[in-house]
């Protein structure tokens, strides 16, 4: 699964740390998601989307391999 977290973060001028605090996870989790090393749970994906005020699918999209 691809995500646009890094891009959205830049648009909203948030650091990984700040986003982590907003969705109540560790910085490592945000970092791992951005590096495509971790696919978040549905709950976390929806929380991230809510911070950016977008639909989940505008931020997370499926890839060929999924």
């Amino acid at each position, binding site marked *: 699964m691809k995500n646009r977290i890094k891009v959205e973060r830049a648009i909203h001028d948030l*650091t*990984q*740390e700040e986003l*982590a605090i907003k969705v*109540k*996870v*560790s*910085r*490592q*989790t*945000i*970092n*791992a*998601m951005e*590096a495509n090393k*971790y696919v*978040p*749970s549905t709950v*976390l994906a929806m929380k991230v989307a809510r911070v950016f005020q977008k639909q989940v699918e505008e931020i997370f999209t499926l890839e060929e391999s999924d």
Partner: protein
Amino acid sequence: MKLHLLPTKFKKIGWCLLIPATILGVFRIISDFDNDMLTMKVFAILNDNFMGSTGYFKVIETDVTNTIVGVLFILGALFVGFAKEKSEDEFIAKLRLSSLLWAVLVNYTLLLLAFIFIYGIAFLNVMIYNMFTVLIIFIGRFHYILHFNNKFVSNEK
């Protein structure tokens, strides 16, 4: 993913037990487990030795240095490995479980090789180390990845 873990403060307590226990343990290995440092009376469910008979549920007098080092090490390692991180979340839970799986696989691969290639008294040493290696490998891998990730983060705005 909800895991049953110890409160975060156990992590610090764990390191305070684990570090001295490791130093003492290495010291014991260097000295070949020889010099008895502390002999006292203890309660034994089962006790036997090469010469004498087997005893059950008896108070015996014995050297407890290895006992103390082992107990401190295991408690310390359990606390460090299974206390919550400050910001425990789903990714850390997954990392914890995958590290545990990895540690069991690596540990038994090494043990398998030791079974095949190490014989005699040396294998006794393998058995001694093997009591602790699962926890050591688990803690090592879990913290390495957590820390490695951290480095990425600090570089980035």
